């Protein structure tokens, strides 16, 4: 099928502001948006700059706005976003510094990620056999959804609170905190909740739900954030 793709371009060396450029492309309905971007870059304009690695929805490097909504370019099929002769729009993520074309600076995002101590904290001696700390399947299940996260930033950059203020810790960091706070082997919950209870912590969430809709891994982000709020308000980890 033939259609047009409109891509937001920005070259920091020659431009003050980003502009749009439109390309005529031909693709299979079953192709992914990433294939379309490859086609533009490889066949029409080699200067198009984007980030991608695995091309299979695992590495989390190609989150962007596709038709105005955050998604992974490697997971969205052409037939789901554009018709024959139609127009497909591709723009970089919102709320993070724009570096070039579709590439944003992820550092503010990872700074928030690190602030919740995304690693297991347990100061007890290792079990006698010196092997892993055992956990029941039910207890493992409790935080399973948080482990699906690939840190693509689609959720955080879809959040109105984050657009307004990048000091907001953002959905992804809260999901990562949830993954450890609700892990019964972990002992760092109090420290993480200290961070999350701050002025730019979890209370900035207004349940606008864009994060849940944007997550390419189907994580119920708003729900997990709600559970963290409840934990902070009640001190109970249910």
């Amino acid at each position, binding site marked *: 099928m033939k259609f047009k793709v409109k891509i937001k371009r920005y070259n920091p060396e020659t431009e003050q502001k980003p502009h749009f450029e439109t390309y005529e492309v031909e693709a299979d309905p079953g192709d992914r948006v990433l294939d379309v971007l490859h086609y533009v870059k490889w066949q029409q304009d080699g200067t198009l700059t984007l980030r991608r690695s695995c091309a299979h929805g695992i590495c989390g490097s190609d989150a962007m706005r596709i038709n105005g909504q955050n998604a992974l370019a490697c997971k969205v099929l052409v037939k789901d976003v554009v018709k024959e002769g139609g127009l497909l729009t591709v723009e970089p993520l919102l709320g993070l510094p724009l570096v070039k074309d579709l590439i944003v600076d992820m550092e503010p995002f990872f700074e928030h990620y690190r602030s919740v101590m995304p690693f297991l904290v347990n100061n007890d001696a290792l079990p006698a056999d010196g092997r892993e700390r055992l956990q029941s399947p039910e207890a493992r299940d409790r935080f399973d959804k948080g482990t699906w996260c690939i840190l693509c930033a689609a959720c955080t950059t879809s959040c109105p609170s984050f657009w307004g203020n990048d000091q907001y810790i953002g959905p992804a960091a809260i999901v990562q905190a949830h993954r450890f706070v609700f892990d019964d082997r972990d002992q760092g919950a109090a420290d993480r909740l200290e961070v999350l209870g701050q002025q730019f912590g979890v209370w900035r969430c207004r349940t606008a739900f864009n994060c*849940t809709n944007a997550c390419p891994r189907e994580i119920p982000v708003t729900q997990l*954030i709600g559970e963290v709020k*409840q934990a902070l308000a009640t001190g109970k980890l249910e």
Partner: protein
Amino acid sequence: MAAITSRFSSFVEGVLYRGREGHWAFIFHRVSGLAILLFVAIHVVDTSWVAYWPTSYEHAIGLYGSLPFLISEYFLFAAIVYHGINGLNIIIKDTFPSWWNKHLQANSFWKIIALSALCWLPAAYFVTLNIYNFHLCPALGGSCGGAEPPVPFAGLSITYLIVPVVSLILAAVLAYGGTFNQNVVAKAPRYVSVPGRNLETWSWLFMRWSGGLLLLLIWIHVLANALLTGAHHIDLAYVADRWAQPLNWGATFTILMLAVLHGLNGLRAVLGDYLHGQAANRAVAVVILIAWLVLTGLGAYAMFAGVQTA
């Protein structure tokens, strides 16, 4: 390599973000909350005149009956019903976080819109009635019941109207418990030491408790004053009469205490989304605290002093 960040452009482009029902619900909630706050701030000041400048009060309440104000009442009441019902949705789902799921959220948005429309229609009926009786009909030169508009349900106590409306809401809101707690696996709770409650934690809890309380109080207030009575029948004697009844006085006083703080604290939260840095946020908190003290002080003093007879 120069990276550009523009908070302003991400705000503007954010408006165009293709969010879904949850995003719309959030935008409507914010806009309606701020609109009600604007109204309440003006309303508290002009109502307080009953104690300070009674003649100015009569002039102000005359404006409430003017055509532009009556027309804007359609929007005000839409904002009040929507914000209240959507606020209830937020409060309930925050209490049962597993209800914050994709299917329910899309679904409940439309239920909230439908329910808001349902509750707005009677209000719109009364507003239309007032517009007809006091503006349209006289302009057309008809003989219009003028001072005595035909009010349906006039003999009916307000409580009879409130009860079905509220049970309707509760029923509809509870109706989406279909996938109740599906995702909560661990049944035995663990406990964790949480940081002491700071301003943000208290503010989050306050928004929920005060919102829940205000829902009923404001609807009764609006029904009694604006709809069943109507601005054309409100004067100093009417206010004196309302404030002579302890129950009505208490209800209005509770609204005064909660609504102004709820609205101003909401405004603080909204501004905090766009202001960076401790200094700016602290300045906002101080200004808002002063605004709250002035507004509630003015209103409360009037309510204790009572209506001054002109």
